[in-house]
């Protein structure tokens, strides 16, 4: 790259026009993502449009446009533009910051209104001394000069506010750095934990559907509660969690929406809930004698994994598995294994409402051995009720960049406030003999809001007048 080329590049990047073009481009292109569905919802939309259009959308990454190469490119370019602009303008600001204007300048006094001058009696140097004292107490810097014409003061305040605009622009950098750190070192995931259970594996949201993360600790959902208002809208979701390392509880926390819990830098947010089969089922057993008489035995609570005796003591049985909606369509079911005193084990599924299912599914399907609840004669098993329990759905995040983002937020607010509502104020005061009186003239300039400055100068003139009453 030649020197000339680099100059053109630098000039382009330091132009305010480019900033404006980029801001408008970012605003305009951002609209796309609010019209075309993004992320998970995109799949059904993609089917509805023509394949050619879909290909264009995919190439331009319009289904995830806020993370697309070109959108990130625009943000990157804007950032570069911002940095170059700031570097380019900084020396000028420094110069203004360091410069100390001469106290006996004439310019500020041109067209000075009569209201900005007062006439007082007294000795010139005495008057100047008292004025100087007052000015020194009101301003941060003061410079005095004595000439044949009289005594002159220059004073200013709020010099540091010249840098407010850099504060605003650097805060944008803080926010961007925070978001980059977050996207590289952080993650967003989720986990469903049934009441009473613990897990140390979470699913990670992202491009790979099956990506997961092993935590260094496990999270147990001790309890989950949902409360409703009278009209049925949800009022509160509450999970009682405990964080365990090597089986030992290190921390307990209650998580509700808007009040997450953190452990080892990872935060857990209440996000959803649902039900899963519990550990109990209400099972009843009926017995058919050889002459066809059916004896019903009372239903009892059966716990998974525990072995129970059969009514006549001719064997044992247990529940091996539970499913609250078998095959996703057949309703609640439990898998029962019978272990007879003599002979082979028998395993089958007991479906809860066989009569209903018979209307919906082909008979030969329901008559298979798999669903034969009478497979171990003379007993027939009936599923009366499947216990269920809640699971809590937690959003699990780690974002080490969030501190930078918060810092950026605070800086941008401080910066905007100072940039808009304060200004660098400079005043010149001239004390000259006028006949046998002494004339004090007050002039000034502000970097912003000239109307407010005029008001302040009027106030200053009155205050100086009061010194000599």
């Amino acid at each position: 790259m030649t020197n000339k080329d680099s100059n053109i590049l630098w000039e382009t990047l330091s132009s305010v026009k480019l900033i404006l073009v980029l801001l408008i481009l970012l605003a305009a292109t951002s609209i796309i993502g609010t019209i075309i569905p993004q992320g998970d919802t995109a799949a059904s939309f993609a089917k509805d449009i023509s394949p050619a259009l879909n290909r264009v959308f995919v190439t331009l990454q319009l289904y995830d446009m806020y993370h697309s190469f070109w959108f990130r490119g625009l943000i990157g370019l804007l950032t570069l533009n911002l940095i170059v602009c700031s570097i380019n303008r900084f020396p000028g600001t420094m110069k203004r910051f360091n410069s100390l204007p001469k106290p006996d300048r004439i310019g500020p006094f041109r067209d000075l209104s009569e209201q900005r001058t007062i006439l007082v009696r007294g000795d010139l140097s005495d008057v100047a001394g008292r004025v100087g004292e007052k000015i020194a107490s009101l301003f941060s810097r003061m410079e005095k000069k004595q000439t044949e014409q009289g005594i002159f003061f220059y004073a200013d305040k709020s010099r540091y506010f010249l840098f407010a605009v850099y504060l605003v622009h650097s805060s944008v950098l803080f926010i961007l750095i925070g978001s980059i750190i977050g996207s590289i070192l952080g993650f967003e995931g989720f986990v469903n934990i049934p009441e009473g259970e613990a897990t140390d594996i979470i699913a990670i949201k992202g491009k790979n559907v099956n990506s997961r993360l092993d935590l260094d600790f496990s999270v147990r959902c001790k309890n989950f509660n949902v409360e409703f208002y009278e009209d049925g809208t949800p009022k509160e979701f509450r999970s009682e969690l405990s964080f365990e390392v090597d089986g030992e509880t290190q921390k307990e926390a209650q998580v509700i929406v808007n009040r997450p819990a953190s452990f080892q830098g990872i935060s857990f947010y209440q996000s959803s809930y649902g039900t899963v089969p519990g550990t109990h089922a209400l099972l009843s057993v009926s017995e058919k004698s050889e002459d066809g008489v059916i004896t019903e035995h009372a239903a009892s609570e059966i716990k998974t994994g525990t072995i129970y005796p059969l009514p006549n003591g001719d064997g044992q049985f247990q529940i091996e598995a539970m499913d609250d909606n078998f095959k996703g369509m057949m309703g609640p079911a439990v898998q029962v294994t019978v272990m007879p005193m003599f002979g082979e084990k028998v395993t089958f599924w007991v479906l809860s409402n066989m009569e209903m299912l018979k209307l919906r599914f082909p008979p030969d399907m329901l008559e298979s051995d798999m669903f034969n609840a009478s497979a171990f004669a003379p007993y027939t098993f009936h599923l009366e009720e499947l216990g269920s329990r809640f699971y809590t759905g937690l959003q699990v995040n780690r974002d080490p960049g969030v501190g930078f983002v918060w810092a950026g937020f605070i800086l941008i607010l401080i910066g905007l406030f100072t940039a808009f509502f304060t200004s660098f104020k400079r005043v010149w005061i001239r004390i000259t003999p006028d006949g046998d009186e002494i004339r004090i003239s007050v002039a000034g300039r502000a970097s912003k809001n000239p109307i407010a400055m005029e008001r302040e100068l009027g106030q200053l003139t009155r205050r100086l007048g009061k010194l000599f009453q």
Partner: protein
Amino acid sequence: MLNSFVLDKITFIYFFAFLLYLVHMVVGWKKFGALATIVTMTGFVGHTIGGILRWYESYQSGIGHAPLSNMYESLIFFAWAIILLYIFMEFRTKSRSIGTFATPLAFLCMAYASFDPNMNQAIQPLLPALQSNWLIAHVMTCFFGYAAFAISFGLSIMFLIKRSVRAENKSLFLALIPPIDVLDELSYQMVVIGFLLLSLGIITGSVWAHSAWGTYWAWDPKETWSLITWFIYAVFLHLRLTVGWKGKSLATTSIIGFMCVLFTYFGVNYLGKFLYFFESLHSYA
């Protein structure tokens, strides 16, 4: 509910105030102007009482939250903020002509809130995600910001009307509009206030989203549109402060900015009804 009854009536008071401001500008009777101010202030007092009443009634019915939680309540607050800012402005500038352009905005908000048959005026309990102290800070800053942008929009319209006519046009209506450089300065000041409050609104929303869902920014359509609005007003401020634009082009920028505000507020919600995928976390307001 008593609060809705009171607030419905405020709609008519603001409409009456608008008529008075308009007659004042067309006919030029000073008494009409003074009356318009009195009517506006009366409306504002009633409006404030209506809001407090709604707050009180929400506690009476056992729900208990600040009236800032759904579309109806946000419209009521928006109109309230517009009138409050306008009253400040009238006292500062001593010009009543701005009232002709500000009161109809508040009236339209109130009319929409009170008389749209699909508007749910009931006090609803807060969903878990809304149960946060950030709710009040977020809604207040956003809508005060929107109100400042609305006033700037009104001033820009006034600017364009005043600019577009020749100097020899001596109609009273135009004569009562403040000089264009005053309008320009006032409009800029309103954008500054609006920009600061919008920034605060986006930031409080972002911090809130982080505590509710774990992400401070999710490119939700409402978030995105608020950012688009922020970009447009950022352009406005750079045009004015860095490029040195003034006048007509800047007034147009302010109008475009306000169109973005309207889309952020209403458009995002209503587009959602046409596009099935348009799911917003802000569906309630």
